């Protein structure tokens, strides 16, 4: 459903991505692994349409979206879970959920969201950023799911969260995968990546240097962790 070909991205004169090729199929979970500053967030921002200084092509659901503005990509079915979670302080929890328009018949009802995320149900009238870090991450994921997005772009969703919360995120990813949603998951946590993903791209200094399957990843975990500087 997502096909990125020869994507280059720049910040002014500095090139941040070099000839990146990435593919995510329906119901496929693909991780993007790379150390700090490798260009992971930049790639996701290019995909959602917020970073525009690019060349190359982004195809989504068989359509070239390279020139589409961000809001149209979201409406076409891309759901972004931002690295800082992107929860609105000036909106309540429920308003955070209702802000993005529904984009497909896959869209969740509020009732379903609250059943899946009971911690949000009790706080629906509270300000978005009054939630704990873990709850905010749940809210960010729930918000993307509520729209009925068919591709989730998740930027380090497990970062800084307690193991129980990470385990829940893993369950959620497995569930949405089963419904055919594609997930591009940015992860520093190789162990976590290995438990949810089908394929792994290793990004280094703006280049995809390797594509691994989960068996490779697990076999070379020690070496990769060293590369990631963890």
């Amino acid at each position, binding site marked *: 459903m997502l096909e990125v070909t020869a994507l280059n991205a720049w910040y002014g004169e500095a090139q941040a991505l070099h000839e990146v090729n990435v593919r995510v199929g329906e119901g496929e979970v693909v991780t993007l692994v790379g150390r700090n500053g490798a260009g992971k967030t930049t790639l996701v921002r290019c995909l959602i349409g917020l970073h525009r200084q690019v060349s190359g092509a982004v195809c989504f659901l068989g359509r070239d979206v390279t020139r589409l503005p961000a*809001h149209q990509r*979201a409406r076409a079915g891309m759901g972004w879970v931002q690295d800082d979670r992107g929860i609105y302080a*000036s909106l309540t929890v429920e308003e955070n959920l*209702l802000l993005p328009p529904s984009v497909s018949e896959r869209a969740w009802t509020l009732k379903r969201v609250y059943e899946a995320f009971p911690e949000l149900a009790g706080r629906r009238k509270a300000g978005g950023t009054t939630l704990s870090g873990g709850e905010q991450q749940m809210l960010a994921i729930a918000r993307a799911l509520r729209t009925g997005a068919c591709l989730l772009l998740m930027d380090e969703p497990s970062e800084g969260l307690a193991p129980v919360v990470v385990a829940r995120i893993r369950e959620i990813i497995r569930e949405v995968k089963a419904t055919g949603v594609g997930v591009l998951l940015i992860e520093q946590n190789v162990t976590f990546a290995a438990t949810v993903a089908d394929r792994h791209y290793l990004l280094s200094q703006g280049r995809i240097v390797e594509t691994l399957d989960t068996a490779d990843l697990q076999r070379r975990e020690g070496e990769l962790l060293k590369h990631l500087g963890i």
Partner: protein
Amino acid sequence: MNALLQYAVQGLAAGSFYALAALGLAIIFGVLGVVNFAHGAFYMLGAVTAAVLLDTLNLTLWWSLLVVPVLMFAFGVVVERLFVQWLLRLDPLYNFLLTFGLTLVLVELVKQKYGVSGLPYTPPEALQGRVELAGVVLPRYQLFVFLFSVAICVLVWLVMTRTRVGMIVRASTEKPELARALGINVGRWVTPVFGFGVAIAGLAGVLSAPFRAITADMGNNFAIILFAVVVIGGLGSIVGAVVAGFLVGLVEAFGQAYAPTFAQVLIFVLMALVILVRPAGLFGRKEATA
């Protein structure tokens, strides 16, 4: 006691103009990221339009309160399409140059057409004279201005907190990029939001018509104080704009009563104090200063 209440009402009436104008300024800044230095000129245009409508078509204040905001909205839409939209991608310096330049042009045009002496304006009879409230005699018009402005502010607040439009305005004020990435066409709201801000500045102008000398220059001093209001309330904060507007009106009225030569200075002393204690303003968020 009697005098105190009279100053208070006078201050709240004057504060109404600041509150309404600052409200428009805050919403424009929030959604467009543009500080509209022409806001004082739009306020002036509102008052001048009301005076012209009364003079030529005999449209009273009641009508002007309805008609002028609509005209000013249309004018704001034209200004946004012609000029302001180009600012959104440019360095903030251009923002100042354009909106300040626009002020000079509008002020000169009005001067050319209507001269420098004030245009007369009489409010409808129902709003003239004084009313006695609990033993205190108060000017009827000032009470009306205050109540009318509060009603408008409450209305805007309801729209902002209870409607989808309000939600989108809040979201694109707080994190515009994220709003776009979540599927909100922020660009579509830019023109109506600017038009609304201009309309409400015009409305403040209409309300001030019976209360102030209507001249081409009436917006200049107003704009300077408006700047203080926005800094005190916190740039981009809607509640802050309204509260600071009334607060500054009160400071001005009491200042004029007890220390006439320092009335304006007092406002800027208040501003300096607020900056010292809360650099982002009374209701500003910390990020807003960055």
